[in-house]
């Protein structure tokens, strides 16, 4: 799994590529924790390259949602592949954090 981070106008955009599984979920958690540690509390995850997410990966996202719930914090995910979107919807995650079709549509609402 590859994660690249870009900061744009106060927003941190983490683009994730690959499978988020038992081995790689901690990498994602670490990348998010690092950004939050740097004071970046507006985080958008771009999932266009994510083909699979395990329950461990879902746990990382919930944990992030818990950390980023202060006023002014933002946390969203965009560009989900259909298989991953299906897991999010059926697990109920679409009602916890915002899901956007694209990066542009996500940032336009922030």
């Amino acid at each position, binding site marked *: 799994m590859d994660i690249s981070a870009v900061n744009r106008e106060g927003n941190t955009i983490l683009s994730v590529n690959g499978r988020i599984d038992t081995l790689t979920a901690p990498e994602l958690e670490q990348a998010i924790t690092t950004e939050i540690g740097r004071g970046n509390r507006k985080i958008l995850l771009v999932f266009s390259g994510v083909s699979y997410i395990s329950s461990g990966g879902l746990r990382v996202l919930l944990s992030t949602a818990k950390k980023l719930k202060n006023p002014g914090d933002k946390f969203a995910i965009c560009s989900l592949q259909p298989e991953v*979107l299906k897991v999010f919807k059926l697990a109920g995650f679409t009602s916890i954090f915002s899901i956007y079709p694209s990066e542009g549509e996500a940032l336009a609402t922030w």
Partner: protein
Amino acid sequence: MPPGDGKPDSIEWQPVPGAPGAALYPLIRKIDAISSNSYILTTPDVIILIDPGGLPEQAEHLLRVIGTCRAENNRPLFVFLTHAHTDHFVGIQADPVFTHPDTAVFAVQQAGACALESGDTTVTQSDLMQVPFFPMKVGLHLFSGERHDLCSEDMSFPNGARITITRDKTGPAGLPRERIEFGPGPALTVYHTPGHSPDSICLQIGELLFTGDLLFAASPGIAGLTGWSQETLIYSLGAVEMLIVKEGIQLVFSGHGRVIPATDALRMLRAVRADACGLANIAEMEPDRAARTAAFAGDCMEQVNELFTIMSGRLQYVSFILDELGESGMADQSSALIRGDMIDELLEAFHNFAEEQRHGQDVPIHRVLKAGQVIAKLERTFNRDELSAIINPSLVRRAGRLLSDYTTMLRGFTPPNECSDCDLNALTGAVVTGLTVPPFTDDEVLSSADDDVAFSRILLARIGTPPLLADVEVTVLSEDDPLLVCIDPEHFTDLLTYILEDQVGTGADRIEISARRSDRTAIVTVAGNAPSPGTPQERRTWRFLQGLAERAGGSLTVNEREGMHQFEFTAPAVYQTLLKPEHRVK
């Protein structure tokens, strides 16, 4: 069976109880279908190698140990096979030290010996495992028809060995046995224990017993291998149980896996025997069935993966919401209902295994057995009743049925035909209603307010089971009412639920369901406006759904029309007028 890592767990010399002067060197591997354990026995008269295994590197290791033994005391070498399946012997075929009759004498039960000498690829499982082998000379045919009971026969071999072999039928429960004396030192007793294969034997020296694959012989995917016999297996299992008791066996050394104390072995033999008793009329596991089962394993594991991830995610969601509500105790209880980490590891292990197969030699039977192992472990972690009380029971029910459908196929059972006459409109209506209405009404929530236990239960279910179709525009149309068909209603319910979930999950907010009669068939069409990415995963899902439609008693086609997916389920129609009055659906 999972892939082993090739590293032996136990490789230390140890004395043989009840056989003074004998020593044992066990080479015990992690269980897999590629190579067996190996055992080297030494007495002052002979070196005996039991099951060289299926890997050349294992054979090389054994050869080094045997070389050291010979340097200390040069004795003849015998190689006994507990049976002639490739994973027990093929590793030695590259090495002339083993294959030259002047250096090693092979000893195999008559049926296995003939298979090895003729190059039989069926009895040896060479075809199924896709492991080729060269025909080989077997110097000592055990239980040969030419030997007579109670008559001792002296035999000599090109490697200088001289043995006395005595046959009798006085073993436990009349089990045929041959006692082999290699000299004045401890003798080896061989018992014919068919069932796993016609040539299976157990070997005893002192208080140790080597049982080959007897303890695996009723396992899913192993039972039903060519040459497997339920009747003889049940007999052999009972007889070996008696043998262990009567001969005072202390330790049992299996063809795969750890060393087993005799008391545990007795318990395991009884359990395997009980399993074997339930395996009447199972299908043979030959290459074609292995290929079909492997294809189903792949599709099935995709769905298992998705369902378990969704269920685990749903519990995390419930836990998250409860935490937000300040109910951290309930949140912890909820998230503990599924061992997400363990499930992730199991699913990951199968994914990695399948990827390795895809990039290397794809052996269907390996995939079949690996999926069986993962599914058996998932079954053990899966608490259906508790999960159904919180998350959508349809998810739990379908996950359970998926596991049991695979196990049924793996075991070789013919699934019972559960088709019956039913009203397709009523079934479809029940599925749609079940996915539209919350599990408890608002009145039920209000009336439970004074009862903490009832309120907790209802709260959990309300959070955990939001209606799938609540925010979806669903239209149901039917020209005929009732629309009678002959199908398996449970598999049809699963099929329709999978399709609706797939559509809603991938973004559909409008779904049309229509049912109609067409000549002698009835057709249900489901069309949703989810985008159509046409990914490989989607095609695998469709293949899985088509298999599910067949198990439901019909067939499924998937089309794309005007940007909408269209699933068409076709089943044989039943005409009310042809039914006896008492069978008519009211």
